[in-house]
């Protein structure tokens, strides 16, 4: 792994809905980070991003979103990514404490 590279998922917003999407290993876009392809080396990250840029019709603003391995697949490794994955906490949430779990 290149020094300083932070593992992550190729993530973007869907062109039509704006929804958060992640790139899976079979090149499909998926909604959950758990189903996405965790990239751990910089060279592969560059190839994957270049691949996405060649097809601008689906995803907007692709970048490497920090993530780490989890029990059921990759999970977000930054607070912003946590909220991108989970959606707004506010309307649905029941209590303040819950969000800190």
């Amino acid at each position, binding site marked *: 792994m290149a020094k300083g590279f932070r593992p992550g998922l190729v993530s973007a917003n869907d062109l039509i809905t704006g929804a*958060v999407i992640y790139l899976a290993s079979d090149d499909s876009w998926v909604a959950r980070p758990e189903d996405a392809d965790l990239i751990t080396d910089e060279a592969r990250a560059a190839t994957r991003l270049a691949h996405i840029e060649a097809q601008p019709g689906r995803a907007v603003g692709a970048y490497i979103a920090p993530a780490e391995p989890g029990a059921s697949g990759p999970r977000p490794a930054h607070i*912003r990514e946590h909220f991108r994955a989970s959606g707004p906490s506010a309307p649905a949430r029941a209590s303040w404490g819950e969000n800190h779990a």
Partner: protein
Amino acid sequence: MLDGHDYLTRRVEEFRTQVARRIDGSLTEEEFRPLRLMNGLYLQLHAYMLRVALPYGSLRPDQLRALAEISERWDRGYGHFTTRQNIQFNWPRLVDVPDMLARLAEVGLHAIQTSGNTIRNVTADPFAGAGAGEVADPRPVAELIRLWSTDHPEFQFLPRKFKIAVTGAPEDRAITAANDIGVRIVEKDGERGYRVLAGGGLGRTPFVGQVLRDFLPEADLLPYLEAVLGSYNLAGRRDNKYKARIKITLQEQGLAAFTAEVERRFAALRPSFSGADRQVLAELRTRFAAPGFAARSTATFDEARTADPVFRAWADINLRAHQRADHAIAIISLKPVGGVPGDASAAQMRVVADLAERFGHGDIRAGLDQNLILPHVHRADLPALHAGLREAGLATANAGLGTDIVACPGLDYCSLATARSIPVAQEIARRIEDIAAETGPLNIRISGCINACGHHHLGDIGILGLEKAGAESYQVTLGGRPGTDMAIGRRTGPGFGADEIVPAIDRAVRASLALRLPGETFAETLARTGPDPFVAALYEETSDAV
């Protein structure tokens, strides 16, 4: 006219073509982004966001109904009212936005210049034409500025966004000193004119606006504004977006040098304004004439206020003095305790539209604190208005209290955010609800990043959400004030973690009750004691705060 249906329809159809070309791949995102932003369409964390301007906060019932319909047909059935008299839809799909804009155009609304380095939606005192003690109604002036600035060819690519606010009242409810230009209508020796402020703003470098001209004769407004914009357009820093606002230009050049340049330009420009602008202003004044007020007994108000404690609480807290003693300005709180500040459902928007028609001369205002306002309600109609609001969950009696919290979307929606603000607002409101009425006026404001959309610098208590070592961290400021004598709050010390901030604010508010003298507001107590006892309360249980 610039909000004419034909003009807006043309703009919508142009955007429809652009959207289609983006979707079929003929436009890249790089090419499309500025086009969508010109139409108020942002891309946020989880979705697009469409920002619609509500010029100087004025809304007619048919417009509010159209907003309700738009939220149901193409969004998730609600809208978010902001601190700049805009409404934001948080979940539109790209393909639907042209239809949303077309529906807006039918009622004369649009999203033009709600983004980009242009002159943004002109804001004004939400009590315009109604507030007791007003020198003059600011709406004709705000409308004149809007007509002049919309699509102004010279000012579409300014160094940075540009915000103008207008007030006609001694009590500055339009926060003019926090705008790039603030216009205050004043009177001098029986003559009406303007005090023009510039260089106010919050964000990472907050400044109170400075007076450029203490008294500008009425006839000189547009040439003078054009001179200010022209000077800024040339001198504003285009090399660094953090230094590009006029507030920095003014700091770098100094007030005297900047003013001299403005006056030089003004002298050159003045002759080219022949007076057509004054004629337009005169016509606008008739358009914004007061509605036909009826003289009726206010007995039903007095009876209801005596008989019904719930009505009484609402009336005492949510009403403001009208120019006529038999009328009142009614604030419709969009801050139910535990709710999302500024959100209104489609059903609620329709109820407000109906009630405005029945009791409010069809006049609705969006405030600068994420509430709605009916500016002209006869006192006799207030009990029925209250009953109607109550059925729709819109009768929270907390206007101006600690639970009436201003909060930006923060990390729940905003792609620039560094921390959440909405859940903090919700939880503070729950925590202090029991003492909110007893505490009296208290202004709590929360922003989810340094951009300060929640105006946190202007709160009695301001909260700024930042990210620190991968976690949310909240900085507190005390002693901010939004009004005529606007003041920027001072930082109290280290930030609080997400699980510490709510108890800390709760302690500070409770401390104010112990500290205050009879009749004092939170702000008055703070001014008398200084920050120390409040800081002690804030940090009481977090001595290990970092």
